[in-house]
């Protein structure tokens, strides 16, 4: 796996920690341990996305128009085999 993919995977896993903490916080909205962990994880996420964007350009591709092209339409789409990394 190349470095760009590795960084992408790191962002996904930190994003998943935030995602799962969000469910926990729904039913424990004043749990300070969880809030602290969420904030820490979000900082980590923001830093990783910044690192990605510094090296490889926009991480969220929704509005990417580089090279005079609307990149949202580009293959692969998520349900296709080739969009998903092997080493998971």
């Amino acid at each position, binding site marked *: 796996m190349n470095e760009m993919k590795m960084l992408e995977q790191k962002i996904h896993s930190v994003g998943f920690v935030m*995602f799962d903490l969000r*469910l926990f916080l729904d*039913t424990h909205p004043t749990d300070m341990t969880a809030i602290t962990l969420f904030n820490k994880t979000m900082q980590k996420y923001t830093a990783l996305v910044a690192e990605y964007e510094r090296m490889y350009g926009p991480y969220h591709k*929704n509005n990417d128009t580089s090279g005079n092209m609307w990149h949202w339409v580009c293959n692969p789409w998520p*349900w*296709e*085999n080739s969009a*998903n990394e092997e080493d*998971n």
Partner: protein
Amino acid sequence: MWTYEKRLQFPVKIAQCNPQLAKIIITQYGGPDGELGASLRYLSQRFSMPYAEVKAILTDIGTEELGHLEMIGAIVHQLTRNLSEDEIKKGGFSEYFVDHTLGVYPSTGSGVPFSAGAMAVKGDPITDLVEDMAAEQKARTTYENILRFADDPDVKNPIRFLREREIVHFQRFGEALRIVQDHLDAKNFYAFNPSFDKPMK
């Protein structure tokens, strides 16, 4: 309002086609304990849910289930892509094929189209949350049954992930039920529907 993230929640990359397995797994797309029913159930129950934390958990889990629906669709698609007519015949896939070719259609493992009859929106927070907890357990059992027939790690890994999410959701719904029960007090000791029968202040 929703936005779409152009990725799966957990990767699905299947090297080997397997139409027999696809026929079983499709039940989690459109079957009685599948992801479509799950999403529709939680997102619909939100409207009569009086408590903020529970509205939040129904929204977030209902949204995640749509992501799971997409994962199941991806598994079925990748298990059946590029099948030859011979493989379709040998894989017992002809009955599905004649109706849907290689499209992904919400139906049960036995081919019955998706029905909202397998889910409930009762408009009573306790009733609905107990249904949701049962639904997560039913989906967990279904994923465990699928795992009995799956040998391919490319298929087993995303199915195991989905099974684990059912357990997390069951836990969160249990906490949501406790939150609802904490709102019941001496004025509503017998737990009449706290969404409709407003106890006197």
